[in-house]
């Protein structure tokens, strides 16, 4: 399947390997704003497009890496299924491969899966131009190291993903979103209590003393829960979460640097100047702040979390918080194991990797 296109990508990489030329891997180019820029010859996966295999009762879908995510998600919707990690788009050109490489999960993450949880298998081209296949199509698979999951969130620095098999789940029949007025503390406490009593919450968003929660399930169940919890049912649940997920909501329209801070969800306050909101029970905080990168990195690190500069006109040397030397060394060793000449997206994730 698409053997010719894959062969041609392999040839390009092999040549780059032999001549030590760096390559800038591109899918839909929807996340070029994210992390570091790679100044190198572009190699595109957009020729690798199409769904390879999908049988709803098998709970997975296999597609070429350059397939637009929208096409895949539309197909799943037709069969009342979904990606449980609810991938963000940021632009309609988003591809499957790019989503895996960036490793971003959407609003449903704490209540279902992270994208890395759903990776069943990936085929990759490593830095020597070899086309390799890891993992498979089944959720249980421990043959060899979990290289396919390693590709998730690696920003293409370990290999060019050519195809992937991803777990899918049934889509809840119905969803509603309830709006509450709460202080942050109260909001977080309520969410936790509701979750502990197994209310099927599938998304949370808090901003300016307002809390939105999404409840999903059978229609009668969802309405029973609405009665129980109270709150105001908002007009269009779907549009609301799309705007949050894809950053079309007002909060995200800004020229101020936008920080993505991942912290333990019970964290009270991240003491940084600037406006903030949260998703994921408080585990993901978006902060618009002019503070220095060092300060933001340090603050989140002290809270046992990590920060990345998500969107900004000016960028520091690294958009991700620094890591300790031992973990850094493991990263460099792994990079070398997959890409000995350092030609695949060099510096895309960390300037040194």
């Amino acid at each position, binding site marked *: 399947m698409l053997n010719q296109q894959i062969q041609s990508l392999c040839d390009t990489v092999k040549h780059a390997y032999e001549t030590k030329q760096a390559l800038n891997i591109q899918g839909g180019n929807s996340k070029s704003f994210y992390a570091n820029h790679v100044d190198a010859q572009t190699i595109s996966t957009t020729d690798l497009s199409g769904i390879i295999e999908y049988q709803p009762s*098998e709970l997975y879908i296999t597609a070429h890496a350059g397939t637009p995510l929208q096409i895949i998600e539309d197909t799943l919707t037709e069969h009342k299924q979904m990606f449980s990690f609810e991938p963000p788009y940021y632009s309609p050109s988003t591809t499957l491969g790019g989503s895996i490489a960036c490793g971003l999960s959407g609003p449903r993450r704490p209540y279902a899966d992270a994208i890395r949880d759903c990776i069943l298998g990936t085929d990759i081209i490593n830095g020597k131009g070899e086309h390799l296949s890891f993992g*498979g199509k089944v959720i*249980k*698979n*421990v*043959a060899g190291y979990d290289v396919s999951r390693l590709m998730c969130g690696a920003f293409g620095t370990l290999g060019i993903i050519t195809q992937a098999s991803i777990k899918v789940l049934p889509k809840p029949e119905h969803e509603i979103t309830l709006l509450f007025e709460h202080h942050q503390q109260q909001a977080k406490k309520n969410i936790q209590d509701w979750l502990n009593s197994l209310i099927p919450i599938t998304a949370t968003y808090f901003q300016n003393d307002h809390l939105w929660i999404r409840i999903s399930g059978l229609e009668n169940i969802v309405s029973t829960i609405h009665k129980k919890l109270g709150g105001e049912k908002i007009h269009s649940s779907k549009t609301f979460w799309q705007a949050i997920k894809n950053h079309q909501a007002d909060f995200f329209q800004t020229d101020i640097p936008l920080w993505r801070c991942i912290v*333990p969800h019970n964290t009270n306050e991240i003491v940084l100047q600037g406006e903030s909101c949260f998703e994921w029970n408080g585990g993901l905080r978006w902060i618009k702040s002019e503070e220095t990168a060092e300060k933001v990195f340090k603050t989140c690190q002290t809270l046992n*979390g990590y920060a990345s500069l998500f969107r900004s006109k000016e960028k520091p040397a690294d958009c991700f*918080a620094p890591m300790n030397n031992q973990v850094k060394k493991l990263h460099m060793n792994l990079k070398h194991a997959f890409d000995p000449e350092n030609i695949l997206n060099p510096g895309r994730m960390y300037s040194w990797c």
Partner: protein
Amino acid sequence: MYSQKSLNTDEIHHKHMLDRSEIPALFSSCLPKACIFTSIEKLRPYECDAYTAYRSLPLAVLLPETKQQVIDIVKTCQKYQLPIVTRGAGTGLSGGAHPIENGILLNLSKLNQIYEINHELQYARVGPGVRNLAISEAASTYDLYYAPDPSSQIACTIGGNIAENSGGVHCLKYGLTVHNILEITFVNIDGEVITVGSECYENPGYDLLALLTGSEGMLAIMIQAKVKLLPKPANKEVILAAFNRIEDAGEAVANIIASGVIPAGLEMMDQAVIQATENFCQAGYPTDAAAILLCELDGFDEALQWEIQQVTQQCNQCHATSVRKANNAQEQELFWKGRKSAFPAIGQLAPDYLCMDGTIPRQHLAHVLGEISNISERIGLPVANVFHAGDGNLHPLIMYDANNAGELDKAEEIGSQILELCVSVGGTITGEHGVGIEKLNQMCVQFNSQELIQFEQVKLAFDPERLFNPGKAIPTLQRCAEFGAMHVHAGELPFKDIPRF
């Protein structure tokens, strides 16, 4: 007695020239004398894990009681180039904790402290030697539990679970070990302590947490983990459905899932297992059925009712001869008891059995079961089937008698053919038990030489001297060449210059 085979260790480098008698002195500064075993009778219990077909004795067994002792041991091993095999409870079914004759066996079962149960962030922080079930027991004070529940959960350790990425009957809905581990602290080959992961919903950089999970003790020694705890489901129901044809049961599985239900557990047993377990523990299974399905559902009240309805309807449409819902908690336990006694029950039928672990896309269930029965007939040993039907993970149990010359070879041949069958329908040779020493040959079938070399490069990124569990999980190209199953990639001959790793 047992007819034993010894492991072919020519793949393992032995750089040191140390003798067993020299070992106690070497480690005397690392841990108390009483924790260093070198006498043959004290080594004997460690000659194999639960993969008992092969046995060998290590140079010594070390039983550290603190993390610092583990660190000191690793440093000493590195200094003298002594291979280290880490062991939890030794319940592994593929020989992962099988000792290496010229190496140290590091038993971590004494690092069994539960340091913390955090009910707010819902995790437990535990030592590697903590037993799987002990975590849920400790968490139950807060109505929380640790979801992955291998059948061996009374005995197996969290260190072993992480190293094998163990599953259980509830993984279809709640995931494998890899989905339930938040943070790992490990000792690397230089004796440094490194932590990866966090209490957060996401971690930066390469997913080292995933890479370590399922790495069979070949990359590092885990000395602490934070594992995810979940609120106990308020309500659960267990349904038992019987079928006259195994194909019907297979179809019911597909249809249940297609209907939008994700059961907490979905298990299938064939007639041989039904009869064996019924004799063993009287779970009330219909012994005339060709197959039974055991389906556990949990969740919010109304949703649960809807799911029961769906499952019942799908089973009936697939010609179930009976569909019963357990009436109360005792009956639920009883239904499960049969499934959980499957292995010991088979153990009563035959002196020995090999348990396979292939996993296939569910759609091929009927075909694969048919083929397994053909293979069994052709080679001439009985095979009973019990499996995690929801996730396509088969556990064919090949029954043999090691006292009869040649039967182990026959059993291995059946196992080998079953695993190759799984690969041929797009599945994998191991779903949850790991490769260990047992499935090294089949790795040559599932992966080509470039892929195996890539695995080896990953190993070297962590352990350049190959001291952690050498000779396990990833076969050498030499072995594959001898086994004769290596894929030839794009017409290239992969053995021009065979590296021996």
